[in-house]
């Protein structure tokens, strides 16, 4: 009897447990499955991110090397990384497409972004090239000769003297900082000062240690200290993301066009010799295209025919030289006097030939003579410019014995095209630049990538573009 009861009781418990546990196992199984799916979805998005990074890393090298811009073409868009990384790929499908065909609007963001960080060195390089003769005098000076002759102790003495005049330099720096604060329209002065202060402290300590004979790599340690490094990188980020006024962007786009596009000039010449015409980074254009092209003239005129566009550019330069020469002659006493002498002779000659019937005043003829002179000199200048030589901006007698000043205001073919390009609307310039980029680097250039994936009925989309083109 008790056995029967025993079985009855156990059976009841087993059935109870079977029912309850089945429900529990079912519920738990559903939740575990849902959690696994959610985890897999997160992993899927991680793998999509990796795939996007890989595609963006596969940029068009030609575009970056020749023109400093990031872009991809459709050939580098794939799903290899995703296929390798994602463990649940049996349930997933991924479609990768290039995103955002490169437009003038992208170039409007990308070109100033590229030029902004390089502008200080571009301006410095321009100043250095114009004052090369002064630079020659500096490098020939005693202090530099001492440095070259490896007289280390004397060289260090000069540095000590230089650093020892910090009271004088302090006044100069304070004046400079005050001036900069006045024109600090961007409000970034505080960041720059903080950065300068931390960097200055690190450098000051390192320099002192070095001069005391300590050759440990303190400088590297100070600069690579995480706090300093964070400051430095923060400063760099702020600088790179600095919003410039649109007029500054327009000027940088103009400078970019002048610096990176081939003109019909093959060689640039000076007293030291000649060199193939090169871009801003010193790469000859013939290495870039393999031939000499008139891209800059195309950007200026918008005319596809090279012969016509170069001809138009020459006429514009000739006109500009005539105007500048005529204006300089008007303020050049020496040339005015010469013109006056010629005008007097001409006036007399006209009077004689016309037997006194036609009288032209020498004062009027003087301006005609100056104009003809300007025409002739303008033609000579234009010929020199086309051959890659430089000409002084002003053909003034006072500059004949001022070699340094004449060097400083010497101009070449690109300078004139750059000046005239300022008159071309920026949208036109960007459109023409884009045409050349497509000609050189492929017709389809994109600024980003879009991934679209499905996983167990759910759809996932992820997009990213190069930071250079992303909105501020």
């Amino acid at each position, binding site marked *: 009897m008790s056995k029967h009861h025993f079985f009855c009781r156990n059976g009841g418990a087993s059935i109870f447990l079977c029912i309850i546990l089945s429900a529990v196992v079912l519920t738990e199984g559903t939740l*575990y499955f849902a959690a696994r799916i*959610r985890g897999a979805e997160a992993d899927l998005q991680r793998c999509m991110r990796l795939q996007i990074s890989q595609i963006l*890393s596969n940029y068009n090298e030609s575009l970056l090397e020749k023109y400093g811009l990031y872009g991809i073409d459709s050939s580098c868009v794939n799903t290899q990384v995703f296929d390798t990384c994602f463990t649940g790929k049996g349930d997933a499908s991924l479609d990768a497409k290039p995103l955002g065909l490169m437009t003038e609007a992208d170039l409007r963001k990308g070109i100033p972004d590229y030029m902004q960080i390089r502008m200080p*060195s571009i301006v410095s390089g321009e100043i250095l090239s114009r004052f090369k003769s002064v630079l020659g005098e500096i490098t020939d000076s005693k202090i530099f000769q001492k440095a070259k002759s490896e007289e280390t102790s004397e060289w260090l003495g000069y540095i000590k003297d230089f650093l020892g005049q910090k009271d004088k330099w302090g006044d100069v720096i304070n004046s400079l900082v005050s001036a900069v604060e006045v024109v600090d329209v961007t409000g970034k002065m505080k960041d720059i000062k903080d950065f300068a202060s931390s960097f200055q402290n690190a450098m000051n300590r390192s320099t002192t240690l070095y001069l005391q004979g300590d050759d440990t790599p303190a400088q590297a340690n100070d600069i690579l200290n995480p706090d300093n490094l964070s400051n430095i*990188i923060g400063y760099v980020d702020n600088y790179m*993301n600095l919003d410039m006024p649109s007029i500054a962007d327009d000027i940088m786009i103009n400078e970019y066009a002048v610096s990176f596009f081939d003109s019909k000039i093959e060689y640039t010449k000076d007293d030291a*010799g000649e060199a193939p015409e090169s871009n*801003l980074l010193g790469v000859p254009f013939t290495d870039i295209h393999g031939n000499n092209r008139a891209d800059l003239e195309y950007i200026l005129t918008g005319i596809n025919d090279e012969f016509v566009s170069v001809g138009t550019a020459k006429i514009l330069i000739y006109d500009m030289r005539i105007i500048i020469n005529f204006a300089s002659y008007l303020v050049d006493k020496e040339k005015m006097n010469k013109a006056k002498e010629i005008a007097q002779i001409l006036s007399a000659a006209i009077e004689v030939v016309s037997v006194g019937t036609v009288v032209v005043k020498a004062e009027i003829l003087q301006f005609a003579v100056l104009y003809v002179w300007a025409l002739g000199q303008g033609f000579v200048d234009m010929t020199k410019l086309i051959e890659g030589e430089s000409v002084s901006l002003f053909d003034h007698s006072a500059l004949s014995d001022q070699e340094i000043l004449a060097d400083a205001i010497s101009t070449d073919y690109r300078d004139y095209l750059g000046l005239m390009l300022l008159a071309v609307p920026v949208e036109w310039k960007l459109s023409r630049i884009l045409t050349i980029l497509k000609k050189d680097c492929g017709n389809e250039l994109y600024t980003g990538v879009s991934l679209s994936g499905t996983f167990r009925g759910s759809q996932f989309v992820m997009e990213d573009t190069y930071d250079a083109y992303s909105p501020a």
Partner: protein
Amino acid sequence: MSHTLETAIAFPIVLSVIVLLISAGPVLYEETVDAADFQLSAIRQSIQNDNIYFKSNLIYEGESYEIVSTSPERMHFFIRAIEDSGKILIGGVMSP
């Protein structure tokens, strides 16, 4: 041992195990969802970031975590800018 006593002992044990099992699932699911959302937020931040080095805070389970996002593209861009600046300055002195 009487049946009543057996039941009195077994019932809480069985019930506790069942409750534990039942509660483990939702907790695991919630944890996974939170972790996935956290990961997704970090991914979104890395997509939106356009700085070489950028710190921000994300909240996970009531605690704030500092997230560092980097942009290899901007770092590459910056290194190239330094390299180019050197070339430009040298070009300014050396070129005719």
